């Protein structure tokens, strides 16, 4: 188990380094940040001084190593745009808004997606199943940004107390969290439906039924437990979506989180912030996946003993 964790952690660190390299080179090789930073009428001497102040005069490789070194202790340097604050500070200010929305959306995803998936499997072929599968299909096919706008148009205008933008009180969570969770609900529903169908067809479930156990016990205990292992890896993807997929939704609803920050910073070419954001998000994803891998290995011994079957 220790070996398994070690190997996976090492792979995770390599991944983060690769992401940092991509982010750094993308940001630097495609444009000189000075074009944005320096006012057009700035004197040549002042420009050079500014360049020195931000370390932009050093060779690229050195800039990258400095960047990695600083990032390792959480220092991403001052934001070009906000000048006095560091990229790390700004991200930390915006993080809670994203986390809160992500948490609400995750809860919504689970409490709707999982029961619907189970119900759909148990009531296979009935109207309940048809509705659930229709919802799953819709959730996988609808563009989130459009759903957000349509909801603003249909709901928010009719119902006064639901705000359409910004973050003011619990009501503002309603629309964005519905839009963010719709895809996850669809995916979880499908995953749980097929996992449940698979376990419900096994011999030991038939045995449990023959023993005269109540349907509730058969489904809730004997079928649900093994069926819930497979969709577990999906939570990694779900976390990715909560962090990056929410970008578009945050922009639609002017939600003051990381997604909106990324959008604003990229438009202003504020490299420290964009780099820090990309690294921060990538690192979160890697850690999340690592935790899920470990949980998976803990639950299912086949994983830690051999190669993982699908990954």
């Amino acid at each position, binding site marked *: 188990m220790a070996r398994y964790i070690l190997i996976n952690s090492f792979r995770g660190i390599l991944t983060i380094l690769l992401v940092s390299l991509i982010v750094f080179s*993308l940001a630097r090789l495609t444009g000189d940040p000075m074009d944005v930073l320096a006012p057009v009428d700035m004197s040549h001497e002042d420009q050079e001084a500014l360049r020195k102040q931000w370390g932009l005069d050093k060779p690229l490789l050195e800039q990258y190593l400095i960047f990695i070194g600083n990032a390792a202790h959480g220092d991403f340097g001052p934001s070009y745009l906000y000048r006095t604050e560091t990229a790390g500070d700004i991200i930390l200010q915006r993080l809670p808004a994203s986390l809160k929305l992500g948490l609400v959306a995750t809860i919504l995803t689970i409490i709707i997606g999982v029961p619907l998936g189970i119900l759909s499997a148990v009531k296979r072929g009935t109207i309940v199943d048809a509705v659930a599968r229709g919802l799953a299909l819709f959730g996988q*096919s609808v563009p989130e940004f459009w759903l957000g706008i349509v909801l603003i148009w249909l709901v928010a205008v009719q119902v006064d107390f639901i705000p359409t933008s910004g973050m003011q009180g619990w009501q503002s969570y309603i629309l964005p969290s519905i839009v963010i969770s719709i895809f996850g609900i669809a995916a979880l529903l499908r995953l749980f439906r097929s996992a449940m169908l698979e376990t419900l067809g096994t011999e030991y479930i038939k045995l449990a039924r023959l023993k005269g156990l109540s349907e509730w016990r058969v489904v809730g205990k004997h079928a649900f437990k093994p069926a819930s292992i497979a969709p577990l890896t999906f939570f990694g993807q779900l976390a990715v979506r909560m962090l990056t997929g929410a*970008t*578009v939704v945050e922009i639609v609803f002017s939600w003051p989180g990381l997604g909106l920050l990324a959008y604003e910073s*990229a*438009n202003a070419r504020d490299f420290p912030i964009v780099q820090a954001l990309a690294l921060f998000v*990538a690192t979160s994803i890697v850690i999340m996946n690592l935790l899920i891998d470990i949980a998976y290995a803990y639950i299912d011994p086949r994983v830690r003993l051999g190669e993982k079957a699908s990954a």
Partner: protein
Amino acid sequence: MTTREIRTGAGKPEAGLATSAALPRQPADAQQVRGWRRLKRLERMPWISISIIVFVLLLPAIFADLITTHDPLRGTLADRLTPPAWIEGGTWSYPLGTDKQGRDMLTRLIYGARISLAVSTITIFIGLVIGSILGLLAGYFGGWTDRVVSWLIDTFFSLPGVLLALVIVAAIGPSFVTIVVILSVTIWAPFARQVRGETLSVREAEFVARAQVAGAGPGRILAKHVLPNVANTLIVMATLQVGVVIINESSLSFIGAGIPRPNPSWGVMVADGRDQILIAWWISFFPGLAILLVVLAFNLTGDWLRDFLDPKLRQRQ
């Protein structure tokens, strides 16, 4: 029990018990039964979805210049914010109304189909080629090749795609090439993962061992023996990924990191109508509806293809 239920039973023999018991088991009839089953599945072809793909995406994309009467980029300001024809104030010369620059919505939607089709075809082709090659190599050779490729797959799954797109676009500006590159970079990984997994199992097949004994090199074995066996999976995946690419392209275009204005990408059109949603809902509504319909159609068709080509394939989305 229908074929559809067999699939959703995830290919477990238990789930298909009733079917296999009801059908004749004699080997002589096996071929016939398979042919009959295939025909049965063909009957269940999703005609509505295929019609949507043909009439909302393919035909408009190909014949855009012939079937439109307005200019997709330049409008008549005097006619701006005209509602759709069936609403009061609408006119049949603008069947779906106009946007805030007086451009015909229907014309722009039709040209938008061309963009969606071009982006998704090119992107999926690139992703499929890169993904298949890497997946085949990793699955067949194993060892370090596999370790490196698997790591690359994991890495590209955890790339914050939207953020990277925003960085690139802020630096060099949005363009057709940029968006195709960004989308291709994110789309090869699912192909590679799937192909790798299947190659791993095909590699153990008897016919591969025989080919090896007969002196076939790895290139020949991969091209002639392994690739044909993963082809069905690739077809299904490519179909299902069209929806993913169209959604991603339109999302990036929506936030200004995709197809640049004034080109009529469906995502750009939704963004254009965003501020007018309360006074002119049709500007955002129709392009989004087009995305929804086309993606829905591709998802249904992909599901059906999976049934048709191999009912035993597991759901992997």
